[in-house]
């Protein structure tokens, strides 16, 4: 009888609080969006599962380990505790992912047309606007964000998941779950969010602009570029060095051609293993008290504002550049400056094809697209430099 009571007291039904129940539903929703709507499934599926697991009452997924005096484990911790502490609190997982993304990135289009870096810079405008927005909301008493929180939220506008997670883990660990979910959700929504903004800010004539074919880029340029970027980071913005250093390292492994087996592993086994655990670890931050509050609403709203402003800034920057140069840029590719590789570039290509069925912008948009990755990592470095 005693045992039966014990089992009942251990059961989820007995312990489940309303908040946990809602968060399990949120987890199921994320899983649904990942599977049915193909919303960034590589991240949202593990995040959703992590959210479900962490909200099972009594399952102890976040339990802290207890050690005895001799340093032996008396009671082991939960798997999500270990994953979060070892991989996310330390910043290891986003950095390893960034290395893998570097090994997957081709800087060829950017090197063929380095001016597209300005588009990647402009699209970070959303980040900084959002920070101001978050501060204003706090001053108006509607939300309660510190400056560090505001900076972490702003990075959502960079449309770069690992960067957002890395910055949150340093500046606003409590908001990490909501920020990561917002970042990946909006990245998945690029095909819905961007086109109306792109069309509103451009004329049909502008969208029809055909761009010159890109020159071929030599292997040597591709090898020297990540090293140049790294040296510049070292000299001028060391706080961006963790993210961009690992990114350049990954890219150099790929482009050097001498360590193919390492590059393959960085692009496959290693990034996949890390992605599984990163997702679970981020999901473990989706507890009801951290997620079910007005701040999350603020993060979602500010995030989409940042995203929209970033998109608009990229497009407007392209139009501005066309005023001062004879080599015309199709302003649609400016929208790709937000990152969200390669979704944003494909959206630019698609909107371009709608205006002119012979206008292939994909490769041209890949330039600002990877520039956007650099841009948001630089913005992250600036934030950490001011507030870290």
């Amino acid at each position, binding site marked *: 009888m005693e045992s039966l009571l014990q089992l009942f007291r251990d059961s989820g039904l007995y312990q489940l609080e309303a908040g946990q129940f809602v968060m399990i539903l949120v987890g199921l929703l994320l899983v649904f969006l990942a599977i049915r709507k193909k919303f960034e499934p590589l991240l949202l599926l593990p995040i959703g599962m992590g959210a479900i697991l962490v909200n099972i009452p009594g399952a102890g997924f976040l339990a802290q380990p207890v050690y005895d005096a001799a340093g032996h484990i008396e009671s082991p911790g939960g798997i999500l505790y270990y994953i979060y502490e070892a991989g996310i609190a330390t910043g290891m997982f986003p950095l390893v992912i960034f290395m893998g993304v570097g090994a997957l990135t081709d800087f060829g289009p950017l090197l063929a047309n380095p001016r597209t870096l300005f588009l990647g810079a402009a699209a970070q405008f959303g980040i900084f606007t959002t920070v101001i927005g978050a501060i204003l909301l706090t001053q108006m008493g509607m939300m309660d964000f510190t400056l560090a929180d505001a900076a972490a939220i702003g990075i959502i506008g960079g449309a770069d998941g690992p960067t957002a997670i890395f910055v949150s883990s340093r500046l606003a660990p409590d908001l990490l779950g909501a920020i990561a979910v917002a970042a990946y959700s909006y990245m998945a929504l690029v095909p819905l969010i961007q086109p109306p903004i792109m069309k509103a800010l451009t004329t049909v004539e502008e969208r029809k602009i055909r761009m010159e074919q890109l020159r071929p880029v030599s292997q040597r340029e591709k090898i020297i*570029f990540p090293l140049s970027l790294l040296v510049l980071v070292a000299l001028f913005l060391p706080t961006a060095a963790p993210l961009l250093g690992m990114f350049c390292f990954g890219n150099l492994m790929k482009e050097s051609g001498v360590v193919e087996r390492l590059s393959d592993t960085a692009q496959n086994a290693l990034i996949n293993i890390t992605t599984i655990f990163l997702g679970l670890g981020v999901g473990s931050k989706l507890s009801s008290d951290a997620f079910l509050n007005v701040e999350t609403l603020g993060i979602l709203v500010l995030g989409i504002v940042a995203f929209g402003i970033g998109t608009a800034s990229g497009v407007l920057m392209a139009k501005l550049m066309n005023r001062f140069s004879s080599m015309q840029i199709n302003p649609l590719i400016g929208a790709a400056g937000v990152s969200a590789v390669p979704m944003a570039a494909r959206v630019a290509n698609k909107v371009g094809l709608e205006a002119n069925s012979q206008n292939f912008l994909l490769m041209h948009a890949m330039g600002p697209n990877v520039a956007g990755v650099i841009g948001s990592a630089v913005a992250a470095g600036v934030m950490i430099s001011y507030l870290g």
Partner: protein
Amino acid sequence: MLLGMGTVFVFLTLLVIVTSIMSSLVQKYGAVQPAVLKTPGAAGQLDEATLLAVISAAIHAHRSKQ
């Protein structure tokens, strides 16, 4: 925040300049385009050794038949 945005722009402008200089230098002096050799690297060396081994074994075998 203007400052932050300014920093991003200044940094990426620097990168544009450095990249452009680098590219023009490479195109000027690195005239001979290095063929994209798929060098297997040290990792492939064992395979290469195996290959050599197979070849030399085959030669031995061939010779011992004669």
